[in-house]
């Protein structure tokens, strides 16, 4: 292995390891502020310029809060339950972070300084998208490991919930991405992003829009965001799988969760929102990075908004929604997309518009119909072990 290759690999990967944790710190502040606004509070507003005597005086909207949180987490006591499996208890938070960090490499984020590199970026891999899904799935294992190793009833319940939820929602997640892969004819993330140049974003097509909505909902479930945060439902099972975690291990879980949030939003941007495309990119290539991250933050803003407004689902609703609504809709979406693509090959002009409207109507009617079909089943829960 030549030194050039090692240098290029470092140039390609180190920025990811610096930029995203920084963005994580910023996002925690953003989320706390936004949630506070939704709940008619102020949010963190005291910690200002850290490590100086002017900390309180120039509070800068509490922007120093993430740093204070980090220092607090570092100095907290690390408590391990007596009956816990010590090795797995230690490994779980690390294992939760690694896959989330790893999949960042598969996002087609072209930094300005990577122009002259050897082709070492992972998003140039032939199967980048499938790799992304494979590695995100490993997150489940970390959560189960944490739940099992803690030797706590609530932790284990949270871990089992996480597995059941992630297995169910991974299917609509992958099936909705299949539509885009089918249209582009490639699993290469860079090619998918390039195919959407000139505002040909997939979200602007009927099947793309349906796939995007399914993908977004399923990704919320995949990363345990509200309203799908059942594995860590604090009103039911304390904190779920990280009940027995404190100090820096807890911080690692937190970091892993947010990095996974960035990663899955990044994939949504790549698949449906045109990757780094946007106005001004042709003139200034470095703007594509800015656009990419801006789009990620747009999706994260929606996630924060949903967290502030939607109540948590029940377990039976969660499963029903995945298997009876999202799965049939995403399978139909693949069929519709296939037919529409072939019909568009011959058609032009007005016929194309008719196909579009027809697709939109079919998908909308199906969604409505599935909703109606599932509705009679929604009734008060029957309790087995309680009255």
């Amino acid at each position, binding site marked *: 292995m030549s030194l050039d290759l090692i240098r290029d690999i470092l140039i390609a990967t180190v920025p990811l390891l610096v930029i995203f944790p920084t963005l994580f710190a910023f996002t925690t502040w953003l989320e706390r502020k936004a949630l506070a606004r939704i709940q008619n509070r102020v949010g963190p507003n005291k910690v200002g310029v850290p490590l100086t005597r002017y900390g309180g005086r120039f509070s800068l909207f509490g922007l120093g809060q993430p740093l204070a949180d980090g220092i607090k987490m570092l100095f907290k006591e690390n408590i391990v339950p007596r009956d816990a499996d010590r090795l797995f208890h230690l490994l779980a938070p690390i294992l939760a972070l690694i896959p989330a960090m790893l999949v960042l490499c598969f996002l087609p984020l072209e930094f300005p300084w990577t122009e002259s590199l050897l082709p070492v970026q992972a998003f140039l891999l032939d199967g980048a998208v499938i790799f992304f899904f494979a590695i995100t799935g490993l997150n489940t*294992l970390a959560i189960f490991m944490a739940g099992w190793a803690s030797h706590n009833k609530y932790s284990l319940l949270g871990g089992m919930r996480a597995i059941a939820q992630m297995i169910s929602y991974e299917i609509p997640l992958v099936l909705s991405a299949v539509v885009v892969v089918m249209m582009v004819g490639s699993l290469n993330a860079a090619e998918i992003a390039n195919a959407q140049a000139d505002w040909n974003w997939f979200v602007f097509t009927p099947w793309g829009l349906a796939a995007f909505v399914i993908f977004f909902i399923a990704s919320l479930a995949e990363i345990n965001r509200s309203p799908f945060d059942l594995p860590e439902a604090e009103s039911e099972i304390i904190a779920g799988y990280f009940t027995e975690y404190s100090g820096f291990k807890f911080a690692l879980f937190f970091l892993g969760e947010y990095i996974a949030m960035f990663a899955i939003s990044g994939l949504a941007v790549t698949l449906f929102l045109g990757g780094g495309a946007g106005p001004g990119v042709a003139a200034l290539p470095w703007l594509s990075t800015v656009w990419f991250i801006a789009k990620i933050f747009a999706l994260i803003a929606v996630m924060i908004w949903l967290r502030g407004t939607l109540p948590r689902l029940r377990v039976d609703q969660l499963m029903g929604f995945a298997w009876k609504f999202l799965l049939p809709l995403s399978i139909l979406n693949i069929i519709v997309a296939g037919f529409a693509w072939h019909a568009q090959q011959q058609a032009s002009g007005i016929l194309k518009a008719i196909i579009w409207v027809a697709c939109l109507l079919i998908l909308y009617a199906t969604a409505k119909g599935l909703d109606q079909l599932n509705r009679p089943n929604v009734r008060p829960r029957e309790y087995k072990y309680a009255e």
Partner: protein
Amino acid sequence: MSEQIAFWMLSAIAVLGALVAVRKRNLIHGVFALMIFFAALSGLFLLLLAEFIAAVQILVYIGAVGILLLFAIMLTERVTGDDGRRMTSRGWFWGLVVAAAVFVILLLPAIQELPPPEAAQAIDPSVKELGHKLMNPYVVTLEVLALLLTAALIGAVTAAQGVRIPKEEDSSE
């Protein structure tokens, strides 16, 4: 050179993972060791530039099979086992003989027959080629497999539902 190092490291991890998976009394530890083995195997595929197989190895074996194993284990009693007891079995001698025979008779000639490995070349778009192969010559096989899996799924659902006992009309009162 670096491929050599990676190969030996991954092989060592795979062998160790497999050994731990077999020897551990604690089932959960065993499953996670098995997953380490699968991950190392995926790395070996990646070294051979078979990206798709590597990704599918993780997706299917760790993501699906491993988690199913965990589910099954959670339904059994005495998950942790007792680590104190040694794993012994009576047939170990003949097992060793059979393993050695397989190595000498099957694997050794195969290794010796092969020409020395060349530096692997990137096969152009391997995933695309694989997809075309699956859709053109092997489409019938694929569909038969899909049918088989669907049948298995329906069978599993029917088995899980069990026999419906018709409700008795207020027999208790």
